[in-house]
């Protein structure tokens, strides 16, 4: 039985090799879904922190985004989660706080650097307790291939009419896919589709509040309008867009085969590295010239402390550092497109990132309509947004049908919409 011997030896090796090791320093482990940022943390953020905080070591240990929520919950319940938890916005983290798994950090030094809007995604409904330090927001918009625009002879559109005129010209030219978005993964249809363009029509934060306090409905024309616009995109999409995945869209754009890509600021780093043409960006077009533009400026990432952490003091020191202007500057400039929510002044160096953040001056900022409170029940409104936006883009549902389904979903559980 040769295999018995081998396996026995292997088993023994396993038992010997993993007895564990001890550290003299305090080591903090960060749970995150941003595996994209591993290098930035390892090379820039962590060294900067460790330099000013001798005796504390930090390990950035991300989990793949699709597994993050489930894995984090299991680790928190099982008691093996890291000391610092990167927080999803709104209910995802609120639930952890309510379960006592995230620490209250309302009085943390440095929290005064954040306004209420910045903190809203990680604050209890009554506004009294905050449980994560805001790290970054992402801004939605459209990126475009500057060379393609020059070749076709079009300018950056500002209004709806100009937007479709540009798309028509690109389509007539025939060399480029006018609008680069697919529906295979569904989330782009909502995130880069509806969440991106609809706030202009429903009036940003005002419309969002109306939906939350029950004075407006998803079936109101101003909310349906976003879906109607999506339906108008159909003729400009690439061949077989129903099976075009997010990765496909990225590649189509970076290979120079598409002209306009509805997206968000998070894409900046990747596109810089992969495209060999100049990329520009413009905010969602307004209905008619002179209208105030509204952008989706979504508070997306925060960081909190595991209530079961054995290194609370060190973790607190880290969070205080994250709340400082120093971190705001390092983070924003190492990850162009992820904008710190700090009200302390910091400079953005990347030109494309500058373009995105400049919209904060000219346009009203708004967060995703389903993010706060409205996705708390079943059916989950954000999920419905994915599916219905994709259905509208696929042409399998009319804008009115899609809006009605979402309204019905809300009405089924949300008291103020009943």
């Amino acid at each position, binding site marked *: 039985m040769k295999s018995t011997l081998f396996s026995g030896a292997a088993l023994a090796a396993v038992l010997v090799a993993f007895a564990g090791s001890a550290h003299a320093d305090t080591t903090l482990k960060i749970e995150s879904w941003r595996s994209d940022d591993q290098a930035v943390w390892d090379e820039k953020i962590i060294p900067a922190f460790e330099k000013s905080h001798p005796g504390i070591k930090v390990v950035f240990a991300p989990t793949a985004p699709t597994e993050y929520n489930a894995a984090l919950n299991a680790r928190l319940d099982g008691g093996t989660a890291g000391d610092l938890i990167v927080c999803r916005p709104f209910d995802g983290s609120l639930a952890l706080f309510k379960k006592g798994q995230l620490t209250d950090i309302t009085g943390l030094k440095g929290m005064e650097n954040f306004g209420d809007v910045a903190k809203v995604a990680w604050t209890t409904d009554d506004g009294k307790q905050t449980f994560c330090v805001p790290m970054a927001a992402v801004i939605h918009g459209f990126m475009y291939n500057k060379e393609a625009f020059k070749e076709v002879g079009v300018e950056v559109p500002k209004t709806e009419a100009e937007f479709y005129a540009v798309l028509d010209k690109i389509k007539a030219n025939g060399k480029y896919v006018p609008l680069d978005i697919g*529906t295979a993964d569904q989330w782009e249809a909502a995130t880069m589709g509806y969440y991106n363009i609809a706030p202009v029509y429903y009036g940003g934060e005002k419309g969002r509040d109306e939906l939350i306090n029950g004075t407006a409905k998803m079936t109101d024309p101003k909310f349906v309008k976003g879906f109607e616009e999506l339906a108008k995109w159909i003729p400009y999409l690439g061949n077989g*867009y129903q099976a075009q995945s997010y990765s*496909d869209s990225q590649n189509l754009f970076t290979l120079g085969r598409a002209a306009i890509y509805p997206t968000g600021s998070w894409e900046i780093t990747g596109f810089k590295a992969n495209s060999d043409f100049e990329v520009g960006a413009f905010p969602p077009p307004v209905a008619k010239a002179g209208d105030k533009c509204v952008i989706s400026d979504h508070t997306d990432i925060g960081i909190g402390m595991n209530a079961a952490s054995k290194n609370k003091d060190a973790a607190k020191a880290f969070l205080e550092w994250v709340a400082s202007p120093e971190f705001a500057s390092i983070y924003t400039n190492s990850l162009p497109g992820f904008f710190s929510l700090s009200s302390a002044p910091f400079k953005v160096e990347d030109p494309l990132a500058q373009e995105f953040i400049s919209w904060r001056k000219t346009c009203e900022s708004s967060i995703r309509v389903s993010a706060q409170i409205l996705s708390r029940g*079943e*059916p989950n409104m954000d*999920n419905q947004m994915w599916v219905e936006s994709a259905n509208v883009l696929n042409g*399998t549902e009319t804008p009115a049908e899609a809006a009605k389904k979402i309204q019905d979903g809300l009405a089924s559980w949300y008291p103020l919409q009943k």
Partner: protein
Amino acid sequence: MTDIAPTGTPAKPDETARAPRRKMRLHIAVFLAPAVLIYTLFSIYPLIESLRLSLQSSVPGGEADYVGLANYAKLFFDPLWADQFLNALKNNVVMFCTIMVVQNPIGLVLAALLSLPKVRFTGTYRTLLFMPTLLSVVIIGFVWQLILSPLWGVTDGFLRAIGLAHAYKPWLGLEGSALFTLSMISVWQYVGVPMMLIYAALLSIPDELIDAARIDGLRGWAIFWKVKLPLILPTLGLVGILTYIGNFTVSFDLIYAVQGALAGPNFSTDVMGTFLFRTFFGQQTQLGDPHMGATVASVLFFIILAGVSVYLLAVQRRLQRYEM
């Protein structure tokens, strides 16, 4: 649950004589104990811990309440849940039928050809045919999306080359064809499993039986139909029930990898596995609900158990088992 288990009781008259009542028969315990112990500790106990959540409901911030079968009533009768459940179940049934009709016959034919005497390179064929089964779903998802994608020109290029350009559709993205396309990818991935099982069964048929059949004047396909096939019927039954179980459990990985947890487009590829996963663990901004998740899992358990019981009671009992 004890009564529905006829396993291991093939009431043969000589049975008792064969296994004499020895002192305590310690060896039976020795054979069973390690497997039962590890399995109970690391599979059954955790699963029971989770499934009992189905009898409770979560109170935000508080301890869970015992609610009896209320969660089950919700799953079956609340349209919000029942629609999703029935849709997932229907898709599973469709997928199961597709796979049964396509995968297992292909597996049988391949195994039959490979087991023929004097066919050369069978070892090579067997290894190559089994390759897809060895791949990670991450790769399988990537490569099939690449192949079927409208953008990169693999399938539409091929169809254009043979003059069928108009036949191309973005199959994975259309409600009408996504599930069937995924079933076919699953067949491609797993055809090696029935092939191997049937192959092993065919090879263990004694040569004497085949020779005897030849002496009786049977040739080629007749030998296969009249001698070999009846002998491997128990294996075909096994393949069938494994397909049934795998359809409810393994199918999750592929669909999750290719279409995501929301199993698009418009839930047309949602199966019990993705529905269960979404409910139990949550998805993006949807929070996981372990109580409803456990309810879905328990129902899934009974669905599979029903299938296995039918197999054990009806199929397995009727199939005469030839000792070889």
